[in-house]
C-alpha cells in the first residue's frame, strides 16, 4: 500500500513494466503489476501471477473502474496492472487530429 501522486514513477517487482501516475485518488492505493505490489523495482524473486499476465503496452494509459486512478505505461512488461485485485483497463484514447 502506498500513496500515489501525479508524476510518481513505479516499477513492477516481477516484470519490466514501469508506469507514471497521471492522476490518483487520495489515500493509500494498492497498485499491483503481475499480481505484486509496484514499488522501486526491487525484485522480490516472485513471478507474474497467471491471473495478471495480460501484459502492459508502452504509451497506453490505464484507469480503474471509477477513473480516479490513471497511470501511463512508460515501459512495457509481461504483467498486467490491478488495484485491489481488480484489473485496470486501457483508457480509450479519442482519436484527435494532429494540431501542432
Amino acid at each position, binding site marked *: 500500500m502506498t500513496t500515489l501522486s501525479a508524476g510518481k514513477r513505479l516499477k513492477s517487482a516481477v516484470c519490466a513494466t514501469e508506469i*507514471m501516475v497521471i492522476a490518483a485518488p487520495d489515500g493509500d492505493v494498492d497498485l499491483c503489476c503481475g499480481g505484486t505490489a509496484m514499488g522501486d523495482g526491487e525484485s522480490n524473486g516472485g513471478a507474474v501471477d497467471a491471473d495478471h499476465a495480460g501484459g502492459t503496452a508502452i*504509451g497506453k494509459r490505464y484507469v480503474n473502474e471509477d477513473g480516479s486512478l490513471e497511470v501511463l505505461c*512508460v515501459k512495457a512488461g509481461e504483467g498486467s496492472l490491478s488495484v485491489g485485485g481488480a484489473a485496470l483497463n486501457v483508457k480509450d484514447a479519442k482519436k484527435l487530429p*494532429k494540431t501542432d
Partner: protein
Amino acid sequence: MNTMMLLEMAMSGFGDRVAFTDPADGGSITYQELYDAAGAAAHDIRESGASRVAMLDVSNIAVPVALFASGWAGVPYVPINYRLTGEEIDALLARVTPAYLVTDDERLPHFQDRDGVDPRSRGTFLGVARGGDGHAEQRSMDPEDIGVLLFTSGTTGIPKAAVLRHKHLVSYIVSSVEFMSAAEDEAALVCVPPYHVAGIASTLSSVYAGRRVVQLANFSADAWIETARHEHITTAFVVPTMLSRIVDALEGEKTAGMSHLQSLSYGGGKMPLSVIEKAMALFPDTDFTNAYGLTETSSTITVLGPDEHRAAATSEDEAVRRRLVSVGIPLPGIELEIRDEDGNALGTDQRGEIYVRGEQVSGEYEDRGSTVDTEGWFPTRDAGFLDAEGYLFLDGRADDVIVRGGENMSPGEIEDVLLAHDAVRDAAIVGVPSEEWGEAVAGAVVVNSDTPANDDLIADLQDWVRGHMRSSRVPERIVFWPELPYNETGKLLRRVVKAKLTAPAQNVRAAMPLLYVADIERSRAFYCDQLGFTLTNRWDADGRLNWCQLEMEGATIMLQSAEPDDLGGLRNGHGDIALFFLCENVDDLHEQFTGRGVDAPPPTVAFYGMRQLSVRDPDGRELCFEHPVSAA
C-alpha cells in the same frame, strides 16, 4: 513528470527512427541519438552552473537537443525571439542570468565577455552533445519543476515570461497525442519558430508520436512548397499568414499536387474564410484542422477537426456553416467558460472573455505569480463566444493586443510614439482584420487645430513610427477624427474605434464624405418633401430629442447633436441641421440634388460639433469612410 520521459519512451519504443531533419545542412538525428545527445548536453549544462538555458537561434537540430537536455538537467529552457532588436534581446537575456546560451556563429561574438552569459555556438553545443557521454545523469521527476519560460508580449508592452511546468507540458502531450501513432514514413514540416509555443508543442508531440520533423528555419511560401514536395511531408502546421502566402504562391494551379499531405493544421490567429476555402480547394486530399491555444495553456486547447471542416463547408444550415470560422471544441480534459466583465458566466452566443481550465493550463508568469483563480480558471484575455453545440468562436482580444502575423503587439506602445509627434493631439491604435496578416495595425488620430489633416501627414506619421519602432508597428491605415470616443471615466472606447475602422471595405462609398449643413426650417420641407428623404426624430432615455434618423436611398444616417434639444428637429450647437452625403466631391454632392430634380444647393460643406455620426446601409451595416469628416 518530466518532458525527458517522453523522449525516453520514444527512444525505447522506436530509437532508430529519424527524429529531426534539417534540410538547411542536411543533418538528421534519431531518437536514440537525440536521447544520448540530451544526456551529454544535460551534463554540460549542469557543469556550467547556469540557472537557465537560453536558445537564440533559428530551427535546427540543436533546438530539440537543448529542449530535452534542459529538462534532463532540471534547468528551465528559454527560447528567445531572434527577430527582436539587439537591445530587446539584451534586456531579455539580462532577466535569465546566469544563462547557458546557444546561438549562431554570427551572434556569438556579441555575447562573449558578457556578465552572467555563458555563450556557445550551435556547432560547439552540438559537438559536446553528440560527442560526449553523460546519459547516466540523474533527473528530477518533480512535476512542479519549470520546463520552459516563454516570453510573451502583454498589454503593457513589456514581455512577460510565461511559466510552463513539466506537469503542464507532459499533461498536454499525454492527453492529446497517442504514443507511437505515426507511421514510419510520416513527416511533419515545422516552420513555426522555436520561441513560439507551437514550436515547443510540435517538438514534444512529434517525438511522442514518433513522427519525423523536417525543420524549416526561415519561412517563405516557395521554400515551404518545395520542402513539402521534396520531403513528402504528411503533416504541417501553419499560421494564417503563412497559409495565405502559400495559397497566393499556388495561384493559377488547379491543385497543389501534394496528395502526400494528409493533414494541415493552422492556428495562432484568425483565418480569413476566403483563404481557408481556397486552401481546401488546392489541397483536396488534405484534412484541415484549426487549433486554438495560448502560450499559457501549453498550446492547443480547442480543435476544429477535418470532419467538422467538411460538415461545415457542405452544410445548408447557416449555424453549422459558420463553424468553418470557429476554432472548434475543447480537447478532452479542457473546460471553457465565457464570462462578462464582472466575472459572471454568459450563455450561448454571448460574447465575453474566454476562461479555460485543465491540467495543461499554467496561467502563471515569472515574478507575477498565477493568474488562475481558486477554482482553476485562467482568464485568456481573448474574447469570444460558444454556440449551442459548444463550438468556440474568437472575437478579438479582451485586452486589445494586436496579433499581426503571429506577432503580438501592444496598441499603447504605438500610441505613445504617435503622441510624441508635434501634430498629434490624441491617438488610438487598434488591430483590424487583414487577409495577409490576420490583423493589421490601424489608427485614428486627432490632430492639433493648426495642422492640415491630409495624405502628406499620414505618410509623415507612418515614417515617424518607422523611425521609432520595428516596421511591423507602422499603421497601415491612419484616419483623422475630430475626437476619439471615451467613456464617462475617461477610458478610451477602443472597441468603438475598432468597429468603425473594421467596417468592410466594400461598403466604402466615398473617399471624402461631405457634410452639408442647412438651416432647420428649410430641412423639413426641403429634404423630406422635395427630396423624399425620411426624417425621424429619436429621443434618448431621458426623453430628450437628440437623435435624428435620416433615411435616403441606400443608407440610413444617424445623427446625434452636441446639445440635446426639444425644438422639433435635430440641431447642433449652431442651430443647423447636418446632413451627411455619400459622395466623392462637391460635384457629386450637387448631383445628389440635381438628380432629384431640384436646383443644386450652395456648396456649403462644414463640420459643426457633431458628437456622433453613424451611417448604415440598408442591411444595417455601418459604412466606413477612408477619411474623416472635416471642415472645408
